[in-house]
């Protein structure tokens, strides 16, 4: 190796997880305080639990709406209550569940999949979680006092502007989304740098698991897309509170500015909340088909291609605003083209099942049915790409059905499969497969009973976002079926939660590798120790744990024997493309700074909401102070062991 060029060459040794060195590593790495932890596994678990709490809240909101819509002319909810419910439901599922849940899995899994000790910026990682939690609580505080968002998740102006919406509703939403954007942005930066620099030696980019490709790609997407929505909400807040006129025609502004800024963000966001989920399927499904993924390179490239194209289709949400023929044709074409990379993934999964030897675990059931749900959500998207047809579909329940096949089919099914797949790794315990199958069938049946007929509801012309509907419009039976389906789906989720709690309490011990998986996380004990790997492994193929059977690369990965990093809290950085070892990185200790800075930012945002300008200033000073303490140079973090020139 290139050891000679280091001031200190790390030893290469064979070390077990019960060796004295490992015990010492555990003392060095273990979390000292619940509020100060920077352990990516703990942060990942928190993300996942928090996101599931929001999923449950959003689900309850949906059930209340389905009670209202179960029959025509229902008066269970007032229009304002219904409007806040559907808006909060959208906000919750799209912003507080769908992306954070994937960040949770990515946080937990990135270092384990990459053969690293932690994320590149552990404190930033903790910060990203705290800000997400703060943003979620902030937005739900609005909902709790009857000032939740009430203009749908895409929040068109001028209805979102003060003259039409004088309450605090929109201010909660606008500031909450800006706050959440901070979390998303720093999280994305962390994922990007982690993939660039924190991989085990030998893990070149053509050996990255697809899940890493997915999150890496969407993190880039986030860095480009989130500024648009943060800006959009900032301008909205300024319009509402300071008297600017960005969206106000009276002051030469224009309401369509909002739509462009929002969809430039929100269409890529659709891919942000599905590509990592698709990645989890691409990594999980082959394990249960007992073969490598078919078409690894094609799938990885299609992931990137989808994200790139995803930036060129935002106008297809705006076909009805009165745009020139050429613009509409271009965006229609782009919206057709974007289905091609999705087709690559679909046929790769089908081929993996077809040429493999499937084992019907609960995870497999979710992953396999995910493919069908993916295709249903995909083809309804393909139908809406056709402009003249979309001018009929748009803003009807056809689109509601479509978005739910995308979000539940492509995100939730993948996530539930991933829970069954990685739960043993996260907790050291197995989930009960029998109860898991019951939960699966309830969820699968309930989801399809609720949402498949909804396409027809749309074709029958039911507009979305209506709090009630008249009896003689041909929608009664379809709506009742959807409501029944949604409660079956809810029963399935209840069974799933029972399954999880039962597993946590009394699940069978999992052992390090219950599914005989190929990637590095399965080489660690379950749950992994706080330092992840006793030695940093050296990777020679895409499936380090399957090399005995597959004979993929020229050499053999070295899992038990590798770099020993035991001079304090250390991790190994490698070069970006080839994964050559490059640097021994000193990792930071637990710190309260991320939490303190989060509290200061939140104080600032609460003050902006209430126009307490002086306290907002205090919050800002708190942020600066906190950042100063956070970033104050610490000699022991000095990277003394850099490669010599």
């Amino acid at each position, binding site marked *: 190796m290139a050891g000679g060029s280091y001031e200190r060459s790390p030893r290469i040794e064979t070390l077990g997880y019960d060796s004295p060195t490992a015990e010492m590593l555990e003392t060095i790495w273990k979390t000292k305080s619940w509020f100060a932890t920077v352990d990516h596994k703990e942060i990942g678990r928190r993300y996942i639990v928090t996101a599931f709490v929001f999923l449950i809240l959003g689900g309850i909101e949906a059930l209340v709406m389905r009670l209202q819509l179960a029959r025509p002319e229902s008066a269970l909810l007032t229009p304002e209550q219904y*409007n806040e419910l559907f808006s909060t439901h959208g906000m919750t599922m799209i912003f507080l569940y769908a992306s954070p849940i994937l960040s949770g899995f990515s946080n937990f899994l990135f270092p384990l999949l990459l053969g690293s000790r932690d994320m590149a910026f552990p404190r930033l990682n903790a910060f990203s979680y705290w800000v997400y939690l703060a943003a979620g609580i902030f937005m739900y505080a609005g909902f709790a006092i009857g000032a939740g968002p009430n203009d749908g998740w895409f929040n068109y102006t001028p*209805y979102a502007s003060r003259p039409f919406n004088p309450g605090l509703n929109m201010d909660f939403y606008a500031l909450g989304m800006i706050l959440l954007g901070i979390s998303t942005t720093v999280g994305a930066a962390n994922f990007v740098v982690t993939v660039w620099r924190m991989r085990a030696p030998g893990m070149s980019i053509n050996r990255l698991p697809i899940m890493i490709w997915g999150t890496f790609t969407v993190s880039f997407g986030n860095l480009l897309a989130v500024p648009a929505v943060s800006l959009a909400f900032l301008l909205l807040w300024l319009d509402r509170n300071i008297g600017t006129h960005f969206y106000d025609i009276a002051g030469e502004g224009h309401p369509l500015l909002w739509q462009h800024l929002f969809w430039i963000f929100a269409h890529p966001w659709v891919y942000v909340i599905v590509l990592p989920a698709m990645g989890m399927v691409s990594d999980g499904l082959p394990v249960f088909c007992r073969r490598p993924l078919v078409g690894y390179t094609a799938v990885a490239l299609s992931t990137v291609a989808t994200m790139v194209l995803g930036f060129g289709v935002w106008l297809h949400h705006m076909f009805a605003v009165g745009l020139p023929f050429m613009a509409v044709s271009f965006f229609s074409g782009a919206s*057709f083209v974007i289905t091609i990379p999705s087709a690559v993934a679909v046929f790769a999964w089908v081929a993996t099942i077809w040429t493999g030897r499937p084992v019907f675990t609960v995870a497999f059931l979710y992953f396999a049915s995910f493919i069908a749900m993916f295709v249903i959500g995909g083809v309804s998207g393909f139908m809406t790409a056709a402009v003249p047809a979309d001018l009929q579909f748009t803003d009807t329940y056809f689109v509601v059905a479509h978005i739910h096949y995308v979000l539940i089919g492509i995100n939730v099914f993948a996530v539930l499969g991933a829970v069954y797949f990685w739960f043993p790794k996260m907790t050291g315990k197995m989930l009960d497969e029998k109860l898991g199958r019951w939960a699966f069938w309830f969820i699968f049946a309930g989801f399809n009973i609720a949402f498949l007929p909804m396409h027809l509801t749309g074709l029958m012309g039911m507009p979305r976002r209506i709090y009630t509907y008249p009896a003689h419009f041909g929608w009664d039976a379809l709506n009742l079926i959807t409501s029944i389906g949604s409660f079956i789906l809810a029963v399935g989720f209840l069974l799933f939660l029972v399954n999880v709690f039962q597993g946590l309490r009394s699940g069978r011990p999992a052992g390090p590798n219950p599914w005989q998986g190929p990637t590095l996380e399965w080489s660690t004990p379950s749950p992994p120790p706080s330092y992840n790997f006793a030695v940093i492994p050296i990777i020679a193929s895409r499936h380090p744990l399957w090399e005995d059977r597959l004979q993929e690369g020229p050499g053999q990965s070295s899992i038990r024997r590798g770099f020993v990093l035991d001079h304090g809290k250390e991790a190994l950085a490698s070069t970006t493309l080839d994964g050559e070892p490059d640097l021994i990185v000193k990792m930071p200790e637990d710190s309260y700074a991320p939490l303190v800075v989060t509290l200061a930012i939140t104080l600032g945002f609460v003050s902006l909401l209430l126009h307490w300008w002086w306290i907002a200033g205090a919050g800002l000073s708190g942020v600066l102070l906190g950042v100063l303490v956070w970033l104050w140079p610490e000699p022991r973090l000095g990277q003394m062991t850099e490669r010599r020139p």
Partner: protein
Amino acid sequence: MIDQAPLNYLQAFGIKADKVVPLIWGLAVISIIVVVIVSVLVLVGALRRGRAFSPNPDAMPPVERAGSGLPWITIGVGLSTLVLIAAMVWTVATMAAINRPSRQPDLTIEVRAHQWWWEARYLSGDPSRIFRTANEIHIPVGPPVKINLASSDVIHSFWVPAIGGKLDAIPGQTNATWLEARKPGTYRGQCTEYCGLQHARMGFVVVAEPPDEFRAWWDSQLRAQASSGPHDGLAGGRQLFVQRCGACHTVRGTQAGGIMGPDLTHVMSRGTIAAGTLPNTTANLAGWIANPQTIKPGSLMPNIGLSGPELASIRAYVETLK
């Protein structure tokens, strides 16, 4: 089922919607075929060689790389691409076919969306033939009719599925579209861009009628109502209407000249009230005047606290506005 769904878009009665129905069906059939093929492939692929999972240490069979599987991707994506190109060509052809009306429209209607009703102003070269109405738009069968779409508050969307697709009404800009009905009938329309509390009940109807009937309708709409008259029994109702309703509503010929709410000069010629919400019957009319906030909570028409006799009197007057 379709016949009982007045907003469905699988049945078309206008040139613009006609061309779209086959496109929707075509795309739907392609989509269903794709879903069935992939689902069958997944199902058969899984059942063909699959096995149940039993929780013991040797539960997972050994891995093997049985073929590259790449032809699946090449063939699958190749076929998908061909279908996509075909769909794209069909789409653009349909777009081009309905991009312009068959001929230059002679008639222009300005439609202005309000929270939560529709105002229609019929334009004419002859200023004396210009008039306003609301929530019921009459068009002649046959020739295309130009619609200039505006909004006076928030974004709405104008949609008559049987005749054509949606177009948004956006404050600060006028969007133009056209309606071309080929069959007489009453077609339901609806606002489809979420616009606040009563978005759900922001309907309207388009009445397509033969040109001579349309002409007669237009003529009848131009007539002003009497400002006073021999019907002494109604004088009280008229006066009350002007006092209590006239700030928001117009009845041409009287002193009621408000522009906040729909023009009611010929409200009794319309089939529905409250923006397509209720059939225009005596009972509904009384109920709506007395208590709009129960029928459309949040509506900008307030409950104005009429006594029983006042209500009866106003209702009786309104029922003369034929």
